[in-house]
């Protein structure tokens, strides 16, 4: 027993100046970040940014070249075995046993984690029902769709009730519908189990929908970190475009308006803090002024704008990864 191991730290993950080199190539260039307990933390970045490498270091599969990392208050190098008891992981690449049934996959995972008996069987049933695979429990995983395999992996990673759950690109290569499905599971996990979730992804919507905090990573460096709205502020505010039926004149009433300008095409451009809240107020002002609004559009910055702003590139690079996944699943046959 570690002394005072029952005193839970504020931070589920603490990383300090972490470096990982593969030969001459520096995949992780001295990154630092902290994840609070119970938080969903997303690592958002394009292919090859170093997301998987970070996950592998935090889950004790790779040794860092330099720097420090703690998970659940334990050092990932010196206390690797203790760390392993506290974590669950869904790998980027599929890692289910295709020649076994869903139930057997769960049973074996439980066994490897020292679980057995009625308790294990109850848990397996509860989790397979949770990911809606109970009706398929005796079917070989070989015949599962990509989405079903992913759901099985999520159920499996929860079996030993980890404190910190790592999800490495959990919806990579899934169709949009299944993706929403998986998102809902992750939300439920967070709400019901108060688990800390470390998620990597290169889908902005995914980070936006799920994460309390986002770190944007590129070429092995964290280039921005914060809540989603904080990050978006980096590229500026929301913009509302208004066209009126009379002479275009700036809207100045109301302190929610940061600035206003009449564009050459006759539209009025209004910079606001929050477009969703501003829209009704703008209608109100227009009514008071006695002008009629004939057209209204607005633009909110996306995380892609943030990435573009910081790196000059788009984050999306789905082709490569997607192709790799296809090739892999083909090779596994």
């Amino acid at each position, binding site marked *: 027993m570690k002394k005072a191991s029952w005193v839970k730290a504020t931070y589920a993950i603490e990383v300090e100046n972490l470096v990982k080199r593969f030969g001459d190539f520096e995949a992780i260039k001295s990154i630092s970040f902290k994840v609070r307990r119970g938080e969903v933390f997303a690592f958002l970045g394009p292919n090859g940014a170093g997301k998987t490498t970070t996950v*592998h270091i935090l889950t004790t*599969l790779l040794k860092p070249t330099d720097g420090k990392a703690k998970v659940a208050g334990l050092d990932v190098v010196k206390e690797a075995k203790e760390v392993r008891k506290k974590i669950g992981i869904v*790998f980027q690449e599929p890692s*289910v046993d295709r020649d076994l049934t869903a139930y057997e996959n769960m049973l074996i995972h439980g066994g*490897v984690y020292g679980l057995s008996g009625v308790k294990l069987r109850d848990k397996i049933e509860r989790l397979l029902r949770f990911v809606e695979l109970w009706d398929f429990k005796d079917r070989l995983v070989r015949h599962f769709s990509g989405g079903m395999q992913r759901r099985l992996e999520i159920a499996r990673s929860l079996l030993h009730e980890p404190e910190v759950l790592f999800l490495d690109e959990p919806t990579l290569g899934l169709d949009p519908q299944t993706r929403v499905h998986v998102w809902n599971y992750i939300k439920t996990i967070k709400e019901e189990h108060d688990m800390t979730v470390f998620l990597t992804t290169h889908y902005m919507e995914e980070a936006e929908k799920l994460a309390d905090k986002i770190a944007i990573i590129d070429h092995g460096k964290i280039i921005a970190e914060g809540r989603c709205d904080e990050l978006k502020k980096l590229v500026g505010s929301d913009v509302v475009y208004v066209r009126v039926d009379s002479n275009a004149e700036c809207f100045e009433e109301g302190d929610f308006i940061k600035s206003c300008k009449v564009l050459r095409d006759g539209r009025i451009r209004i910079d606001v803090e929050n477009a969703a809240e501003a829209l009704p107020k703008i209608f109100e002002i227009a009514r008071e002024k006695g002008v009629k609004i004939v057209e209204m559009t607005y633009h909110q910055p996306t995380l892609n704008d943030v990435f573009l702003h910081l790196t000059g590139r788009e984050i999306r690079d789905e082709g490569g990864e997607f192709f790799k996944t296809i090739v*892999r699943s083909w090779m596994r046959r």
Partner: protein
Amino acid sequence: MRAFIIMVYRQIKRFSRAKSRVVGMVVNPLIWLIFFGVGWSGVFKDVRVFGGVNYLTYLAPGIFAMTIFNQSFISGVSVIWDREFGFLKEVLVAPASRKETISGRIVGDSIVATVQGAIILFLTLLITEVRIPGILPTLGVGLLLAVAFSSFGVCLATRIQSMEGFQMIMAVLMLPIIFLSGAIYPINAMPWWMKLLAYINPLTYAVDGARSMLTDVDGVFPLSTDLSILGFLALAFLGIAMFAFERSTLE
């Protein structure tokens, strides 16, 4: 202990699922026995060359050992495949002792390989004159052989980085180990340098032991020598495999 048992369970369960693969692995040695064995036994009319039994009977223990060798060696080396495609990572992030999980896997694979050897042995009963009481102890020899070679395979797998390496190993090692074991022709008639290689080949002792127990042929070595060398090698390779796997990482 739970992790060991569950790994044995996993390997056996996987085997029981892969029916077509099982058939393929039984058919291959049978083709050897029937076409190679029956073909040559027509040529070797003088039974003195093979210690006083017909060639088919002489060959039977060899084919049995060969089957187990093939099966266990490939399953050991296929840990590479697991590293590439997932399951190994599952095991490496688990808090269970890695020594325990890998030895569970090796023992599971060895049981599977021995079962396949047993199937071959029962089929050879139909066309050869092997001694029925020798069968059970021969299966024991088969199990030791399987543990030795699946452990050896795991050791190689922790060193090899790629599938190309896997193919290389298979091409370079498999056939010589079979030819230099006395499975298909006697060691005594080999030139000295081949004999030397045969003596350091673990498969030799399994073939010799199985042949002493199943036929009237006098072994190249006393049975006790065969068994102790094979037992020693099985334990030694198992130990090395456990140690090597304990230290393996994803890099």
